[in-house]
């Protein structure tokens, strides 16, 4: 059997982690096929809910038949998820999306996460470490309590660099200020976080000719490729730009293929632009 799967998953655990909520769901089929960069779509509000769309989250971890997501409570949907109790059921679809492409052997890798974008980098760091890679992690947030996954990063990465906008933890500034210092000898850069951060990460990697992969955050309605909501302009092998779905062709794209300058628009040279 091959996924993605749609299951009613039992809540195994739900707890506060700093400014975030960690939700652990029993979903053996999804956990068995999960890869770094995959995401899941969670229904919210119960069967008679007025919230008709699922909430999509990158997988922050999996194992023992369960999957973990980390999120901020931003509205009624995430509030509903945060108030689940062990034993409750949550409808989950996954694993969804195109995950990170992993190297075939050991490399020197720089992993850059901003805000909640740090979460999916933990399983990526684990996978890269298992391949014998050197993993340098760079995690940033607006302030100390918004930092995510720092402790796990210290367990799995060879080095961890922290930045906060206000200097309340680590270096004061953005991850893009710290990234150049981590690129010496790097073979690959992986990024996950806000689009503006990914643009900097992809640009800095390209400047020193290091390939990058970025997992984009785009608003999604379905998560499975049928609604065409989460599109962004991506350069193809043929040099032409197409509006591709973050949920299916992404969320991971090569950093040099994302038309960051045109995200949120349909560039005039895109295939089918009117």
């Amino acid at each position, binding site marked *: 059997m091959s996924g993605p799967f*749609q299951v009613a998953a039992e809540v195994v655990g739900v707890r506060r982690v700093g400014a975030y909520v960690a939700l652990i769901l029993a979903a053996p089929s999804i956990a068995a096929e999960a890869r770094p960069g995959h995401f899941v779509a969670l229904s919210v509000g119960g069967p008679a809910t007025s919230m*008709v769309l699922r909430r999509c989250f990158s997988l922050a971890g999996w194992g023992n038949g369960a999957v973990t997501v980390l999120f901020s409570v931003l509205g009624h949907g995430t509030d509903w998820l945060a108030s689940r109790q062990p034993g409750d059921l949550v*409808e989950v679809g996954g694993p969804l999306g195109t995950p990170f492409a992993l190297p075939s052997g050991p490399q020197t890798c720089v992993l850059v996460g901003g805000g909640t974008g740090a979460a999916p980098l933990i399983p990526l760091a684990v996978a890269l470490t298992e391949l014998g890679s050197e993993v340098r992690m760079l995690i940033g947030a607006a302030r100390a309590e918004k930092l995510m996954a720092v402790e796990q990063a210290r367990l799995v990465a060879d080095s961890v660099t922290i930045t906060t906008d206000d200097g309340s933890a680590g270096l004061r500034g953005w991850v893009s200020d710290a990234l150049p210092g981590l690129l010496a000898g790097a073979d690959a850069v992986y990024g996950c976080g806000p689009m503006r951060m990914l643009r900097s990460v992809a640009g800095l990697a390209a400047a020193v000719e290091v390939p990058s992969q970025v997992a984009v955050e785009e608003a999604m*309605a379905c998560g499975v*490729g*049928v609604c065409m909501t989460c599109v962004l302009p991506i350069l193809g092998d043929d040099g032409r730009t197409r509006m591709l779905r973050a949920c299916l062709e992404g969320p991971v794209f090569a950093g040099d293929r994302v038309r960051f300058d045109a995200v949120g628009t349909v560039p005039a040279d*895109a*295939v*089918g632009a009117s």
Partner: protein
Amino acid sequence: MTDLTTRLAGLEFAGPVFTASGCAAAGRELAPYFDLASIGGVVTKSVMLAPRAGRATPRMAETPSGMLNSIGLQGPGIDTFLSTDLPWLAQRGVAAVVSIAGHSAEEYAALARRLRDAPGLAMIEVNISCPNVESRGRVFACSVDDAAAVVAAVRAEAEIPIFAKLSPDVTDLVSIARSCVAAGADGLSMINTLLGVAIDPRTLRPVLSAVTGGLSGPAIKPVALRCIWQVHAALPEVPILGMGGVRSGRDALEFLVAGASAVSVGTATFADPTAPARVQAELAAELTARGFATVSEVIGLAHLKEAPVREGGARAG
């Protein structure tokens, strides 16, 4: 067990539940979730003559019991659709209802012509909720004459049944329905989305880059039932493919008794990719529990003067 075989415009389908245009792409993405051949069929996303990139993002806003979308008919165009999407459905024995969209009656006719010998194609759904470039962008579906002109143009080219998909954003829906049928529509799909706006209270700006979007989901279900009711009452012989907020078998049953011959499941698919198959299974259980042997027995039942069902759900008579 109720026999789910469904007849629409002389064609036979495996069941009364279809996907809804714009909510299932061309079917393939839903294949991991259910057997596409088990439902009535796949109504594809509207295809146009040329590839189309659609509108800028944000294209979607969740609203109470619904959502707004302004995708802008992003799609590969008819060439890629015919070479890739339609054969994929045909090879799997999936009944394909191809939705077509254009900016002039000529474009619709050209699309119908291109679809003429396409294998696996059951019906054409004519999405007339597009701006007409020849009448200053007025939507075809909002004019008795424009709607009829498009349907007539498709009718002249198509050798298979055609359904006109109607917009609820009109003053007199029945007159539009009559004109489409008079122009050669074998049936009517209703309803398309209702136009809406969402404002972001933080930015005090519209959420959608296009400002307006189409409202779908359970929020529009009563509007859909009203439209189906009115048109079925006026044109009881015309088959209706009903859609607009169907997310359960009970919803589907309500659509059938209001006058629909079959239903499309749209927005519910975004929250549950198994929704079309699930709704069909739930509908089957609802029909069986009430002792109905076939789907056709319930079509329009709510229009009967006497209550068709006794309290407790048992069938009268």
